[in-house]
């Protein structure tokens, strides 16, 4: 009896010990991944500047955000394909046209990728481009003002995902359609006639060398496949552009399964210099389309939107030797060219290897017509003939690749949630680090250029789970900074991001900060409703519109007492900030306005439109804490019933006497 008791005791003890041992096998906490000196490496002391600007896409927030590296501090959120009540962006009369499209006012989009302007494939710090993935558009952000300067809609496109990647001297940014769609006159077709009726396009958007102004230079009509990502060549391959494509199966339903059938999809190689020649030689056909082209002018402080009606389309049938397909395993996503321009890395999302193509071999295969048949009449190059080699067993779910200046590539792996460093020349895996969790894009400062600045790789993650304090069901997304200066990648910082970060670029701070604008000069202000000084303020009635030419300067608005506006009239407050001093914006808001505030930079004029619906006296005030007497920066506007005879009066400080006659409002309303 006693014997069996001790036996069972022993058995229980062993069982407990076994459980404890098993517990020990569970993954350890993620904190262990940070090494000792991480804090010092990411620390930027108060008052000190970061080394890099990081321009990060905001995904479904439609914004672009600007961080400092290595600190991860957020400096600014730029509304791009989004409205921003904080800045009045998309609410002021001046900015509304920026969000106009052929579908009308579209105040939202899904901004996925950033392309910083380049000269000779190196950053020049002038503009940042961003794409709209939903209603196809490309935006250009001026890096002097950190504002959206221009948005162009892309015709014959649906889901501008493969965009806005850029050629070596910023000649073009591209726009490859994610969805193929019916193109031409017959748009109302059964969806299951996809194979005959649906087509893809890749557009080349010209960028003016000095002004940066965009135009849809030409489009290439392609088979009805889906374009995912793209990169221009560099150096010897600079005249070429490479687009990854999926759904060569041409499925229009349950793509998850139906577009994953073929062993290989394609990377489409486009000889854009040749395409440009064809376009100039008149090989294209002008097609009737409708798309919006919106520009913001820093002198009139206003945007204009123009609807364009025509686009030049190049059909590969009429333009031989312009595009080729290269087989690439399993629905390639990332398609990245290395700094030398010789290697093109394809990342099949479902592939077990990373294929690396050689530009020299591509040229050779084209010259020798080393084809593996055709796809919709377009030559398919032989996989083996163009392959430099494959990185074997790199990880699961390769997505994107960036490069440092030392011949190394860094590939993100969504499924296995890691960054893998490998050598481009010999395709050997050198190092791997986990990301927390499910990395999408990654970025090395200067990574897509000929001259990577290196030093860091930043992971942009889709899932954060337990990395931060929880905030209900919706959690922050995040970036992670790794030091890549040594042989081993080292995690040094986590920082939360605005919206969902897709692609991002980083650029040395001194390339941007020296150009950063401080104020707008009043004497250069060409706004039609500017009040150039307090003496020029006035209130004017034009039909049923009342225009208030208002000024703001510390610490009063002029006029600050307005009477005589009647119901049924629309009031336009044109507020000019008279300050000529750095960092002194004024805000402007009116009680009950179904709009937003204005935030007016020094020297700028912005307009808030208001149609009051009830008679009464409405307060208005400056919303930006501008000075010690900011709280006193306020006034009133009186709205009287329609048909009242209150004269139009306006003043500041003088307190214009009220009309002695009984005001119209005091008369009985019923007549």
């Amino acid at each position, binding site marked *: 009896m006693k014997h069996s008791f001790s036996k069972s005791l022993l058995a229980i003890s062993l069982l407990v010990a076994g459980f404890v041992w098993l517990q020990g096998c569970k993954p350890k906490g993620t904190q262990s991944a940070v090494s000792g000196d991480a804090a010092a490496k990411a620390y930027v002391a108060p008052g000190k500047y970061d080394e890099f600007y990081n321009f990060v896409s905001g995904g479904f927030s439609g914004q672009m955000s600007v961080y400092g590296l290595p600190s991860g501090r957020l400096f600014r959120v730029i509304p791009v394909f989004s409205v921003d009540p904080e800045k009045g962006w998309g609410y002021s009369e001046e900015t509304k046209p920026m969000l106009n499209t052929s579908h009308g006012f579209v105040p939202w989009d899904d901004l996925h990728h950033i392309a910083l302007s380049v000269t000779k494939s190196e950053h020049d710090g002038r503009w940042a481009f961003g794409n709209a993935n939903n209603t196809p558009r490309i935006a250009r952000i001026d890096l002097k003002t950190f504002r959206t300067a221009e948005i162009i809609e892309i015709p014959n496109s649906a889901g501008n995902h493969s965009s806005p990647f850029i050629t070596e001297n910023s000649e073009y940014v591209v726009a490859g359609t994610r969805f193929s769609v019916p193109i031409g006159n017959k748009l109302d077709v059964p969806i299951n006639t996809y194979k005959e009726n649906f087509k893809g396009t890749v557009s080349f958007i010209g960028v003016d060398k000095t002004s940066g102004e965009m135009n849809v230079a030409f489009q290439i009509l392609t088979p009805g496949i889906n374009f995912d990502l793209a990169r221009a060549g560099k150096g010897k391959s600079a005249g070429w552009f490479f687009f990854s494509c999926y759904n060569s199966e041409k499925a229009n339903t349950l793509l998850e399964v139906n577009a994953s059938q073929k062993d290989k999809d394609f990377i489409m190689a486009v000889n854009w210099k040749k395409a440009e020649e064809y376009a100039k030689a008149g090989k294209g056909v002008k097609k009737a389309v409708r798309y919006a082209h919106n520009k913001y002018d820093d002198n009139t402080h206003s945007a204009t939107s123009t609807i364009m009606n025509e686009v030049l389309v190049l059909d590969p049938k009429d333009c031989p030797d312009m595009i080729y397909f290269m087989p690439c395993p399993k629905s390639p996503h990332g398609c990245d060219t290395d700094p030398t321009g010789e290697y093109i890395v394809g990342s099949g999302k479902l592939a077990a290897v990373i294929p690396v193509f050689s530009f020299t071999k591509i040229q050779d295969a084209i010259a020798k017509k080393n084809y593996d048949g055709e796809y919709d009449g377009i030559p398919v190059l032989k996989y083996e003939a163009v392959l430099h080699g494959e990185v074997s067993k790199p990880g699961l779910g390769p997505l994107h690749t960036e490069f440092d200046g030392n011949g190394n590539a860094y590939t993100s792996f969504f499924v296995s949630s890691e960054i893998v460093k490998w050598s481009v020349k010999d395709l050997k895996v050198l190092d791997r680090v986990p990301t927390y969790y499910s990395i999408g894009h990654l970025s090395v400062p200067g990574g897509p250029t000929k001259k990577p600045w290196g030093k860091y790789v930043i992971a942009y993650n889709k899932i954060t789970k337990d990395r931060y304090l929880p905030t209900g069901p919706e959690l922050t997304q995040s970036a992670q900074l790794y030091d890549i200066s040594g042989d081993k990648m080292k995690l040094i910082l986590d920082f939360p991001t605005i919206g969902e970060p897709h692609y991002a670029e980083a650029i040395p701070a001194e390339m941007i900060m020296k150009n950063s604008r401080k104020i707008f000069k009043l004497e250069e202000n060409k706004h039609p409703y500017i009040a150039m000084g307090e003496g020029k303020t006035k209130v004017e009635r034009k039909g049923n519109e009342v225009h208030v030419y208002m000024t703001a300067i*510390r*610490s009063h608005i002029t006029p600050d007492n307005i009477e005589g506006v009647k119901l049924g009239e629309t009031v336009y407050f044109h507020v000019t900030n008279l*300050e000529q*001093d*750095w960092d002194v914006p004024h805000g402007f808001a009116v009680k009950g306005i179904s709009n937003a505030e204005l935030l007016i930079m020094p020297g700028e004029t912005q307009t808030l439109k208001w149609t009051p619906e009830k008679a009464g006296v409405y307060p208005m005030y400056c919303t930006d804490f501008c000075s010690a*007497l900011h709280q*006193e920066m306020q006034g009133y506007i009186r709205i009287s019933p329609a048909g009242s005879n209150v004269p139009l009066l306006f003043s500041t400080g003088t307190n214009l006497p009220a009309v002695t006659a009984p005001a119209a409002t005091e008369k009985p309303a019923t007549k």
Partner: protein
Amino acid sequence: MNNKLSVTSRILVAFASGALIAAFFLPVWRIDLFAPQYPEGLMMNIWINGLSGDVEIINGLNHYIGMKHISVDMFPEFKFLPYVVGFFMLLGMLVAVTGNRKFLLFYLILTAIGGALAMYDFYQWGYDYGHNLDPSAAIQVPGLSYQPPLFGHKRLLNFDAYSFPDVGGWVVIGAAVLAFGVWFAEWYHQRKKNKK
């Protein structure tokens, strides 16, 4: 007793009075203001015929404490100062041409008086601006005035004010020092000669 300046002295006096031309092309005085909100500083340059720099921003700030709006047309000095400087240049040249030692002494005394008058005038303006305040000003601190420093540093509310000659001013000062130096050297040599 020889009443003539040496050739070297005359060249130096000519050079000194010629150098005064700098006052026409460079600001002669500068006032710098620093505050927590203005780490980059605000600057006002004073020329012989006007003002430049962040004058409007300074005016914007000054209105809170009731200081007058500074503008060029309020100062009659800017109208006649160029003639005064021109006169001193001409007079200096005459000294060099004539080489008369007594004339140089006279010139130097005139320079000293001129300099003193200029500083006194500058002080008067500063006093007026600092004390003659708008009684309806938003910020009023009993007993406090805002007279800027004549020379050097002074704390004015949240601002550190610095008042020093600007490049043109240093050239004028340098020219005056040179002219005085010439006279002193002449006087020293003369005394030595006389002892012999």
